[in-house]
């Protein structure tokens, strides 16, 4: 390739043409100012750009601009067979790929009508790796949130613990973040020999660390002062905005798709759904959202322990077990429309499929990402707060831009 060609023709109006601010300077009231936060800003969690209208230290309006990480997931999906879309699904929410894969695969299995014929061991392994990944995702959420509001230690502690999870998952499938492990009708591999013991060791190690984390972050006086009564999201507003996951639960609604829909083997497992109670301030504030995430980590640990009991007991490893035995040679669902949803660490992940019945490429595959919907509420949360609180609010939503922009 010759590289002497000019790659990008600079023009001073390019930025105004491609990403114009919604507010025109002449529309501002006196004392108001447009501040552009991001896309290259550490506390916007990726490439989120916020157009902030400020009045002194007060935020009057926040207008998010997205699309800096748009990788055309839906267009790619229209040109690929169903099984080859799974790696693209990984890259939507790159912090919780297992959960996204699980939802995607579950939808296809329902379309093919094979969801009840799978061996229980496969389902338990899926739930096990998904919950491990949920822990990892919540660790990043809580850790980076600590950095946002000025606490550096919890980030390092949580990254250390997340590293163990990533190594476990790397042992399972060979990749640290983007796994392509859960397949339609099965799994890539069985668990490696000795995984169950190592995982149980990790859980034993993690439990006291969670207590330490709670003492370090959640009950820390400075943390409480920075987050309590900030960014309050009332329940009716949360539902109307379509929020889901910890956002919705922190506003006080006991609503978790793992319980509501009862998919996979979740009905056989015993776990609670933590909700925000407003212990430090008001129900639905930033502190509640983070506390719900911490409590969910405990629930995930509970689920992992039960899965390990099942995987070493009733559904233990046998020589004959082949996780790829049920994988269909061609994934060709009948002509239909199908909406599938499942609970990822961020909330309700949905896929809308349309299959035409005569090909193994979807006619349309829409991803309904929880972050995209959760982020849309940011303007309501941050109206008339201080600029420093805006940073606390962005972090508490726990956005992953890969999923917002797809």
């Amino acid at each position, binding site marked *: 390739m010759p590289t002497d060609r000019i790659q990008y023709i600079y023009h001073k109006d390019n930025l105004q043409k491609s990403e114009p601010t919604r507010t025109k300077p002449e529309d501002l009231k006196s004392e108001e100012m447009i501040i552009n936060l991001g896309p290259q800003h550490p506390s916007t969690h990726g490439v989120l750009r916020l157009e902030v209208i400020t009045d002194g230290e007060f935020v009057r309006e926040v207008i998010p601009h997205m*699309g800096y990480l748009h990788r055309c997931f839906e267009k790619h999906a229209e040109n690929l067979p169903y099984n080859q879309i799974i790696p693209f699904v990984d890259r939507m929410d790159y912090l919780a790929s297992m959960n996204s894969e699980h939802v995607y695969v579950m939808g296809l299995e*329902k379309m093919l009508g094979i969801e009840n014929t799978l061996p229980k061991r496969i389902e338990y392994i899926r739930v096990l790796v998904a919950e491990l990944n949920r822990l990892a995702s919540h660790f990043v959420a809580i850790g980076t949130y600590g950095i946002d509001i000025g606490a550096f230690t919890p980030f390092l502690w949580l990254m250390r613990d997340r590293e163990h999870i990533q190594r476990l998952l790397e042992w399972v499938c060979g990749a640290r973040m983007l796994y392509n492990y859960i397949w339609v009708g099965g799994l890539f591999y069985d668990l490696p020999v000795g995984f169950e013991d190592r995982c149980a060791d990790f859980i034993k190690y993690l439990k006291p660390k969670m207590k330490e984390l709670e003492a370090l972050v959640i009950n820390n006086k400075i943390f409480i002062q920075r987050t309590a009564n900030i960014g309050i999201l009332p329940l009716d507003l949360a539902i109307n*905005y379509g929020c889901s996951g910890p956002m919705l639960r922190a506003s006080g609604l006991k609503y978790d798709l793992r319980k509501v829909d009862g998919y996979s083997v979740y009905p056989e497992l015993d776990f609670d759904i933590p909700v925000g109670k407003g212990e430090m301030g008001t129900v639905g504030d930033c502190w509640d959202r983070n506390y719900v995430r911490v409590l969910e980590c405990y629930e995930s640990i509970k689920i992992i322990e039960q899965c390990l009991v099942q995987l070493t007991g009733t559904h233990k490893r046998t020589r004959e077990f082949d996780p790829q035995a049920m994988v269909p040679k061609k994934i060709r669902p009948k002509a*239909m429309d199908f909406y599938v949803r499942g609970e990822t660490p961020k909330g309700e992940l949905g896929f809308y499929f349309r299959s035409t019945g005569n090909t193994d490429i979807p006619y*349309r595959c829409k991803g309904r990402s929880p972050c995209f*919907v959760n982020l*849309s509420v940011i303007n309501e949360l941050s109206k008339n707060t201080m600029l420093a609180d805006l940073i606390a609010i962005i972090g508490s939503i726990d956005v992953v831009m890969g999923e917002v922009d797809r």
Partner: protein
Amino acid sequence: MTFQEIKELIIQEFGAEVVVAENISGLQPVLTIVKDKLPLVAKFLWSSDKTFFDYLSCITAIDNLKAGTIEVIYNFYSIPYNHHFTLRVETSRGDENSLPVIPTLCEIYRTANWHEREAFDLFGIVFEGHPDLRRILLPADWEGYPLRKDYKEQEYYHGIKVAY
């Protein structure tokens, strides 16, 4: 409530002419309604005590190039009753000068705001009455609507070659 009961309710309220078609062959039945009545039907589904669809899960736009139509599918969910409902509206694809127009649901469900902006961005569907209809994922000066089946990407964007 089942799909048929909800359909009966809609017919009772708005008359039989509001329903264009229904598709109950798949796993999830879909009801197609007249697009002009969409905000009224959605408002009814949202406010009626029997249905109470308080959660709009997803808005999907689909381009049917062969049939010359573009459709928008709404997945409603009711948290207290735990039932689902899928509505569908259809309109012509329009041509270069006139984009398809569908009424907005922003005033009932605020979550529709960004979903509709996304559909406008990628499919070129104009949602009538939308308070802030701008492109959301693509740059504001991008040409064309990429998820349409007959989309051809522009050759250069700010001097950068688009096709790779």
